[in-house]
């Protein structure tokens, strides 16, 4: 099938066929990173810009490596996003970049909807959302699904538990959309003040107790908790959070024997995940990172060339 989209802004309206195509393509591209010469000429002469308004080492590096392995020219821009210090507006930045004729722009921003502004404005460029506020992080979810498929053979019918600050998590949202489309059941778990309103309408189950959520789970996805970033000081302390929600060797016994543990990274050892689990046999955290490069190569490959 043909990949029809100009942009990849979120997984909410991606079809099963589209996700399958992306995961299949990523699988085939994974091998390139194992060669001695980790480069293919496919995107030679294409310009890929990483426009990151939020700091990130792993995602940005992953995209940069993905672009370079496809022989594209990768450029990194770290823009400041302070609304107090009024710098150049987003729209002005976009137009300036447009004037330099890039092919693909990868954008991360703390404001939901920011990449959509670029996607609407720039007719000739493809925009990939590398995370917009708490809205979506489609490439993370796609690489998560790639990893799940690798480990379990299929995504259909699996029970996936996602644990953490769901309300502020773009990873949670994209994964709910993607996993539901692919036929998995999703159980969310977190403290009451971190569960967004009416999220059960997305067809997921909601739990405040971790043992309920991970009961019989095939996959446990732990989200990074950042209490310092909580806007309204909602959760009392790290100590209490870890007591209730840390994935420990004891807790993990509630899940299926062959459970797989995932985390988008970077991990907070001892807060949301016990070091023994993070480094142990259940964890595929590092495979997620490897797959991230292949997945992002696949997206660049599918988007490049644009629409005819």
């Amino acid at each position, binding site marked *: 099938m043909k990949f029809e989209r100009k942009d990849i802004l979120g997984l*909410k309206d991606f079809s099963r066929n589209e996700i399958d195509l992306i995961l299949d393509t990523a699988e085939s591209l994974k091998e390139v990173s194992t060669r001695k010469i980790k480069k293919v000429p496919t995107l030679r002469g294409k310009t890929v810009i990483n426009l990151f308004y939020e700091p990130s080492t792993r995602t940005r590096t992953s995209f940069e490596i993905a672009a370079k392995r496809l022989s594209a020219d990768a450029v990194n821009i770290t823009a400041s996003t302070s*609304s107090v210090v009024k710098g150049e*507006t*987003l*729209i002005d930045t976009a137009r300036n970049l447009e004037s330099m004729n890039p092919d693909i722009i990868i954008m991360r*921003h*703390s*404001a*939901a*909807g*920011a990449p*959509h*502004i670029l996607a609407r404005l720039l007719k000739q460029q493809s925009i990939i959302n590398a995370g*917009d*506020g*708490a*809205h*979506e992080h489609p490439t993370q979810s796609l690489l998560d699904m790639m990893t799940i498929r690798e480990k379990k053979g299929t995504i259909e019918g699996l029970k996936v538990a996602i644990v953490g600050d769901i309300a502020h998590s*773009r990873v949670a*949202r994209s994964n709910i959309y993607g996993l539901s489309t692919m036929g998995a059941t999703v159980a969310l778990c977190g403290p009451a003040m971190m569960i*967004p*309103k*009416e*999220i059960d*309408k*997305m067809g997921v189950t909601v739990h405040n107790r971790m043992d309920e959520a991970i009961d019989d789970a095939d996959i446990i996805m732990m989200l990074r908790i950042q209490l310092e970033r909580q*806007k*309204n000081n909602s959760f009392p302390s790290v100590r209490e959070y870890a007591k209730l929600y840390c994935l420990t060797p004891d807790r993990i016994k509630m899940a299926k024997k062959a459970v797989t543990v995932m985390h988008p990274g970077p991990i907070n050892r001892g807060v949301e995940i016990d070091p023994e689990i993070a480094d142990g046999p259940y964890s595929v955290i590092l495979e997620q990172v490897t797959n991230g490069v292949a997945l992002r190569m696949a997206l660049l490959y599918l988007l490049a060339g644009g629409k005819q």
Partner: protein
Amino acid sequence: MRLLLKGGRIIDPSQNMDARRDLLIEDGTILEIAETIPEKGGQKTAVIDLTDTILTPGLIDMHTHLREPGEEYKETVQTGSEAAVAGGFTSIACMANTVPVNDNRSVTEFIKKQAQTAGMARVYPVAAVSKDEKGTILTEFADLKDAGAVALSDDGNPVMDSSLMRNALEYAFSLGIPVISHCEDTNLSAGGQMNEGYTSTELGLQGIPNTAEHIMIARDIALAEFSHVSVHIAHVSTTESVRIIREAKKRGVRVTAETAPHYFIFTDESLREFSTNFKMYPPLRKQEDVEAIKEGLKDGTIDAIASDHAPHSSIEKDVEFEYAANGIIGLETSLSASLTLVEEDVLSLSQLIEKMSTNPAGILKIPGGTLRVGSKADITVIDPQKKWTVKADEFRSKSRNTPFEGRKFQGRAVLTIVGGSVKYSSLPFPARNI
């Protein structure tokens, strides 16, 4: 100078009138209303044929922001009052959150002077309840009233300190000047971008729980009830708010309320494209709330419709959703949008005029809201058949932040008369002189 308006259907709730009548204006006052007024000479008379149109007491928008002084790039008293007459409004009240805030008589007088120079719609300044709208020290209510302020409001901000609000309500009541309350618990709403609900969950935008609104409405009603004074609630938007006001009215509390057209036309679903032209406070709510607002208008819980006209430029609006300022313009679409209520059988035309003219005049205690013989000739003429498509670039307002771009409406003001002078006309034919 006489102006004879012939053959229009006059709807004036203040006189229980809904009939085809001629209306004669002399020297800015309504001289006569009769089935037929002869076009005889004597005095110089201009005649306008208004067959197939509706004449109403001049519409009054009791909640607008004119941005002058301080933010003239968004709007001025001049452009705002031009937008008003283009929208069919003969009087508007403008809020105090200017730069500097209208918390002293100089700013109030300045606004009045600008309005006079503009010579379009009548502009009634609303002054701030607290200095700089900071919510800590009361302004000089008596002095402000003397300078021409018709109401007090910190709109844009709530008065969070209940003790200060109590004092404000008691003091204002004793001076006979209404307080308009912007109800928002800023602790609950902090950081919020849109209504908290399924849509905000999907979009990953921080939500404003609707409790932020009705908690403060309940508080204001309790304060008014306790002290036997009155309070007017601005921009009501939720089911719970309507219910609380309805029950208070039943108990005899002196509370009045207004809503804006966007609260009975749009829901938070409109925000799915992250369009900042749908971002305002209070935020757009759920379909259930839209129904409750309509019900509240129908049963009289909500007394007035006011646009909350809030001009913003591209600088404030063409940015990331989170950084965009709250507010949309409304003077030039408010009437057409409100006519949909008549289309939908929520209100009769007469009831709509009550909400948009009679009641606002009563709440603000300003002249207008009636076509009784002897009153000032502030008249709005509506062509209920006129079909038009909203094109923001054609607005008289300086700003373009409207949610109605491209929307097709039926019904529009075609003639606006203030004090007997035609301030706006889109009639295809000129007045005849006899």
